[in-house]
């Protein structure tokens, strides 16, 4: 029995070899189908892993509360309306909700920074020492802000790597003064941070964070030197803003407490005002959303790939039907010499399976080299067309496809099934012919 299949296989390969071009084109359908299953799944997995990584970098046990500018109908027409998070609210949250382990107040203001004759635009961030840990900022030289400096409201600052490069090109910034012209203050540099990639925006609820233009100072210093009322130049006119805190990052005592804590926080902050001036972002929920999105994405991609496999299968069927017609005579001869209907079915089925398996196997090879292929293409584009490359979205620039291991056996299995399913009908047609008619066929 095994020998029979083996010989039929030999025969099938021989028959396919008679028309190499035709066999190749037929296989191409399955090849593209299988390769696209693997590629599409790998690309979507790569994107989704990156999104999950970014969300996780916000900290799965944190809750982020941000002040948002309220809708204009909530603001009084005259003067400047105070809005956003208050220091009192921070104290209230910390003292009433026991599952909050610690809380980080943050105040961000756009400012200019000067050293000697260099002036740059940047963001002045008032924060506490924990900020570095929670946002995963690493110190390159010097140190981050300490509790003592915050408590004593010292005029010290820590520079992001890019700020340090631009303000102090070729110089060591430690202990040098940075001047902030708007408030006429000097801050002594006590540390420089390592480079950190910007975090991408997450689903509209959290804006992208570019850490590269930041200067960090103790929040109590900021409160004393600058205060809550800030005037900003915007397109020639001045605009005021009264805001105590831009953001509070809460760290809960455990991941299980995140959701209940988040709803408590939201209640506590919105029950006594309807300004709509805060937004609560829970990275854990985003993470869960991202996982659901990933499933949807995968199903969608899988569907697209499945369609291409079906198209490949129809290609196989088309060719095999043509082959059956073309080889009617051979079928007649074989039947006359003793082939049963089942022998004929087997012969043609083996041929379609060979086509689909070879197509599938090469498709898998093409699928597995997805990663090097993409990075090679990217390098070529980067070399030859740097401007085009820079214009590409960041997702594309950084895309690292991750091959989903299950996709390989699945793609292969599907290609075999496609071969069998789309091969059965032509094989059945071949076997059904009367040997007398088939022998008469020219």
């Amino acid at each position, binding site marked *: 029995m095994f020998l029979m299949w083996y*010989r039929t296989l030999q025969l099938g390969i021989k028959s396919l070899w008679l028309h190499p071009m035709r066999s190749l084109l037929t296989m191409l359908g399955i090849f593209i189908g299988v390769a696209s299953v693997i590629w599409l799944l790998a690309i979507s997995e790569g994107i989704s892993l990156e999104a999950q990584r970014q969300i996780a970098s916000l900290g799965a046990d944190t809750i982020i509360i941000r002040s948002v500018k309220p809708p204009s109908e909530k603001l009084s027409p005259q003067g400047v309306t105070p809005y956003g998070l208050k220091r009192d609210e921070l104290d209230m949250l910390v003292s009433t909700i026991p599952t909050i382990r610690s809380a980080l107040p943050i105040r961000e203001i756009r400012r200019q920074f000067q050293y000697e004759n260099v002036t740059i635009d940047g963001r002045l961030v008032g924060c506490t020492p924990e900020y570095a840990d929670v946002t995963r900022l690493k110190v390159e030289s010097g140190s981050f802000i300490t509790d003592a400096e915050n408590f004593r409201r010292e005029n010290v600052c820590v520079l992001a790597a890019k700020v340090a490069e631009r303000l102090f090109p070729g110089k060591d910034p430690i202990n040098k003064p940075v001047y902030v012209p708007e408030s006429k203050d000097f801050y002594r540099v006590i540390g420089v941070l390592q480079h950190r990639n910007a975090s991408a925006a997450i689903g509209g609820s959290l804006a992208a964070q570019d850490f590269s233009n930041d200067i960090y100072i103790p929040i109590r210093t900021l409160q004393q030197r600058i205060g809550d009322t800030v005037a900003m130049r915007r397109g020639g006119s001045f605009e005021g803003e009264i805001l105590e805190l831009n953001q509070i990052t809460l760290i809960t005592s455990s991941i299980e407490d995140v959701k209940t804590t988040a709803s408590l926080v939201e209640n506590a902050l919105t029950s006594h005002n309807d300004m709509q001036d805060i937004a609560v972002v829970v990275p854990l929920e985003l993470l869960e959303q991202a996982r659901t999105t990933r499933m949807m994405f995968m199903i969608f991609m899988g569907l697209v790939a499945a369609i291409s496999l079906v198209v490949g299968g129809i290609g196989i069927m088309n060719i095999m039907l043509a082959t059956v017609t073309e080889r009617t005579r051979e079928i*007649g001869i074989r039947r*006359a*010499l*003793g*082939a*049963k*209907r089942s*022998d004929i079915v087997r012969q043609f089925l083996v041929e379609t399976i060979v086509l689909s398996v070879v197509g599938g196997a090469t498709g898998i090879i093409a699928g597995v080299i997805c990663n090097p292929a993409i990075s090679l293409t990217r390098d070529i584009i980067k070399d030859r067309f740097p401007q085009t490359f820079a214009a590409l979205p960041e997702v594309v620039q950084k895309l690292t496809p991750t091959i989903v291991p299950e996709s390989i056996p699945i793609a292969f299995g599907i290609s075999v099934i496609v071969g069998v399913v789309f091969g059965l009908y032509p094989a059945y047609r071949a076997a059904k012919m009367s040997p007398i008619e088939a022998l008469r066929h020219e």
Partner: protein
Amino acid sequence: MISTPTRSACSVRDLKKEYVLKGETVRALRGVFFDVPEGDYVAIMGPSGSGKSTLLNMLGCLDKPSSGQLLLGDDDVAKMSDDELAEIRSRRIGFVFQSYNLIQQLTVVENIQVPLFYQGKLGKKESDRCVELAHMVGLAGRLSHRPNQLSGGQQQRVAIARSLVNNPYFILADEPTGNLDSRTTEEILQLFHRLNDEGRTIILVTHEDEVAKRAKRVVRLKDGVVQWDRFNTEESRREAAENAIRNLPVES
């Protein structure tokens, strides 16, 4: 293939075949009787429409009779299923066709092996036998040639070797010389003669008198029945052979 002349290679009893063609019932065979003892050499003749082809299809187990009996050796094939018929074809029938009907992608030896393939006999012993048969029909030097590299006569020799590979009840030849020139026709007829002398049973369907005269016996069909069934004398057979050789074109 030593045989006692009393045994029958093929026995046809009141064989009838009707089929419907465009709403009309065609009675192709209306009760055919004849016996082919082992070692016989029968030519079946008849004008077109006489039921010659239908009878050939029955004898070759490609089709089933509507009624009557058809015994091939010990097998009663009239009531067999499609698969059983295929089995008989692979084990006990040796087909030789007018247009050779070799499989183009196979070599000479592989072509000879096809009936054995469908018996599931795929061993070394079988391929040795195929090589032996190729030698016997004079194709020793062309074992791995493909059909399109052979002349018509050589292809027909391959087909004859193929018809012998399964030790058939009889060789069933359908106009075997129809596509061949007179010289090659003569070669093939001599080969048949030799095989018959060695004890093989041959049933040959033809419309050429010259070919029919070389057989031991001629069965003539007309309108679906046997019109006459008579023996050629040794004398007339030898005369026909000599005539054929004499009439061959002079070799250039």
